[in-house]
């Protein structure tokens, strides 16, 4: 490209498509586009031919047929007479519940471990390094199966509670058995009841009005608390003195919620041993608990490494500069170090959340009925519709992932350093 010749005056020649850099990229792209279209056409014609031989044209009618299988852990009402579509919905909700629980605990654990790994205490730092290496170098599927086996093998059977060999934990409110964990459930005496949406369709769901009322009170409280903070900032800017606000902000959030709970007649329903098993309370199956613990511990190891590298990436001069300005250590952390470290930490952590969500599909190994277990598992086997179920399942996972990526990109853009 030392000297670009002037465009030739003789008009367009066919060989220019290959030898002229202005046209060559166009040629390459068109050729590759044709190749890709041909490839997909080949795939589709193969698929059509194969499906015709099998006598299974693509159709989604099976989604409306009764599923005939039970789902043992679910949030909404469901029976085996419900449709495959509803079974898939239960699976999707189970996936999301597991992912959400996992993300919360993995973040808490990961941040704690990442900070402790930087501890000056030799023993603590070494133990955390060991933890991280152990969890990062052993497959997550093995961890899931190990935790599941621990749940089944070492936890007491429900009937051992009767004979007194095992006892409930936390003032007789939580029962940990080899079938799962029973925790107290929130009940409302004078509750507002539930509302049911979408009638009798496969996508029907009920909403607890009590929960909605509590959430509204919570958000109003948070909003007022934010206002108090803004006001305090304003006073500080004007006078240089910051009024004490913490008790006002705390009480404006907590008091109304306590009053609402009291008005709704809130109490806890404890699990009780009846017959061969526990009744009452919320029942978290051993598969859910095992997945939750294993995915949290596994992802926490990765998050810990992200947190560590994020903290180490903030230049030492930053904290020294803050001390030189006379800012207290606590405020240095919250105003100087964390905002810079978080910018580095959060994008990889969100991609860990994405990994956790995708790894939750390993639930099929321990029998937790998530999207893979319902739609791409039993529904596939019962209806024999591999193409439709697997593609639907992939599309749903893709949508979840793209949603999380969108959030990540939005965050990245909002905290990006604007240079020049």
């Amino acid at each position: 490209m030392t000297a670009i010749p002037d465009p030739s005056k003789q008009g367009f020649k066919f060989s220019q498509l290959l030898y002229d850099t202005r046209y060559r990229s166009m040629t390459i792209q068109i050729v590759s586009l044709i190749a890709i279209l041909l490839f997909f056409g080949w795939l589709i014609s193969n698929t059509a031919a194969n499906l015709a031989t099998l006598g299974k044209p693509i159709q989604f009618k099976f989604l409306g047929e009764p599923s005939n299988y039970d789902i043992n852990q679910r949030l909404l009402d469901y029976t085996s007479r419900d449709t495959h579509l509803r079974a898939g919905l239960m699976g999707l909700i189970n996936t999301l519940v597991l992912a959400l629980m996992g993300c919360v605990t993995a973040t808490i654990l990961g941040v704690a471990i990442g900070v402790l790994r930087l501890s000056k205490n030799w023993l603590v730092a070494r133990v955390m390094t060991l933890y991280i290496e152990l969890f990062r170098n052993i497959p997550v599927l093995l961890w899931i199966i190990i935790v599941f086996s621990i749940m089944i093998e070492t936890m007491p059977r429900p009937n051992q509670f009767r004979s007194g060999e095992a006892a409930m934990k936390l003032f007789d409110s939580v029962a940990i058995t080899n079938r799962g964990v029973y925790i107290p459930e929130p009940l409302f005496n004078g509750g507002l009841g539930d509302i049911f949406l979408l009638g009798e369709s496969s996508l029907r769901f009920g909403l607890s009005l009590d929960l909605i009322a509590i959430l509204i009170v919570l958000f109003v409280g948070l909003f007022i608390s934010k206002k108090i903070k803004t006001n305090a900032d304003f006073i500080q800017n004007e006078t240089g003195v910051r009024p004490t606000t913490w008790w006002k902000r705390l009480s404006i959030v907590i008091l109304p919620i306590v009053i609402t709970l009291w008005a709704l007649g809130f109490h806890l329903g404890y699990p009780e041993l009846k017959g061969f098993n526990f009744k009452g309370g919320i029942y978290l199956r051993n598969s859910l608990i095992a997945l939750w613990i294993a995915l949290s511990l596994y992802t926490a190891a990765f998050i810990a490494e992200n947190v560590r590298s994020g903290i180490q990436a903030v230049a030492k001069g930053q904290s020294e500069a803050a001390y030189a300005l006379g800012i207290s250590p606590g405020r240095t952390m919250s105003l100087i170090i964390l905002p810079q470290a978080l910018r580095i930490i959060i994008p990889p952590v969100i991609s860990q959340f994405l990994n956790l969500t995708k790894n939750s599909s390993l639930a099929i190994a321990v029998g937790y009925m998530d999207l893979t277990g319902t739609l791409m598992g039993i529904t596939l086997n019962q209806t024999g519709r591999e193409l439709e179920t697997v593609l639907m399942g992939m599309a749903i996972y893709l949508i979840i992932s793209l949603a999380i990526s969108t959030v990540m990109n939005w965050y990245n853009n909002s905290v990006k350093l604007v240079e020049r």
Partner: protein
Amino acid sequence: MADLSFVRKEIIPQRAAPLSQTGIIGWFRKNMFSDIPNTILTIIVGYFIISILGNILPWVFSPTWNSVSLTECRGILAELGRSGHGGGGACWGVIRERWLQLLFGFYPSELYWRPILAFVLLGLALAPVLFDKASRKLIYLTAIYPFLCFWLIWGGSIWFPVTVFSGFIVAYLGYVYVNKAFGSLAGVIASIALPVLWWLFITSPLSISLHSIMPIGSEAIESDRLGGFMLAVLIGVTGIALSLPIGILLALGRQSNLPILKAVCVCFIEFIRGVPLITLLFVASTLLNIFLPPGSNFDLILRVMIMVTLFASAYMAEVVRGGLAALPKGQYEAADSLGLDYWKAQRLIIMPQALKISIPGIVSTFIGLFKDTTLVSIIGLLDPLGLSTNIRADMAWNGILWELYGFVGLIFFIFCFSMSRYSMYLERKLATGH
């Protein structure tokens, strides 16, 4: 009056630091008991370590190496008066009896030398790639290794891998001769088109006829007899070896300024990264036969290898793209101003630097890929985890858990940990900073 002022005339000999500041005690004080919160932390963590080790160590040291069944193990432990969960001790007899199965699956035991030879040769073939000091001549072994490995493990006629390999020779010869006769572009086209035609139309008849003329071969092994760590390493190494070049091409495509090519690469990468590997394995086990021409039925392990490779390439592409993006723009401009064309610039200037930056990411993708090979147990292949279920189905070992999981976990740990240490060595070796 005597002068009472005192001036020291000699230097006092230096004294050793107080005992509490040096040696072991000083080290403990400095690193573990420097202040009260630190001390509390040390005590809590120390208590945890002691209680965990106190539970695990007696279990690990258990004289059950020679037992042949779980009942016998329990008997030995009961005689020693040990009790507790799992009989109070590990039952290592299962590992002694089944470790070969965990390594090789149901591969015929009289033919174990073939996978062993394949893995020894793998070490030799990787040597010129991994270490500087290895002889450069080994690179020829690296080139033919994939075909050799295929033949060693699956067996059958030697002519099939030979004819497939000669496709590459055809490509080379085609490039050289057509290049001379018709110019470089025609050479490139010939080097792509000729081997494809060779593989599609000539390979299988040629190998069959060669085999009928000169039947050289070894005993063929069915795919469902492959298993254990051999299977994990096979899938892992194939994925690792193929995903790096494909990933680099995808990353270049995503960075390129040809909009159609870019869109295709972005769609592929985002799609693969958006779905869990297990769904891709479902595609391999249930759908791939539907997508291919009617009547074609090829091996499940091969289908899994394809899917695992595609999966890893998408992740690799993102890692390499990170490296490309981290490279200062001046490097690209410098390459352009030297008059290098696109591929020369990539090969000589951009890629060596971008790949160096992305070594940690590349290696952690490799480690992730190797760990993910365990997922094939879900679609019914007998990887170490699938085999451990299989071993438990045996009456003698019904109910054995921790020994098998511990063994499988330990081997995975050794593989993955050494990979991560190698990446640190590589980073240090390639570091050109100060």
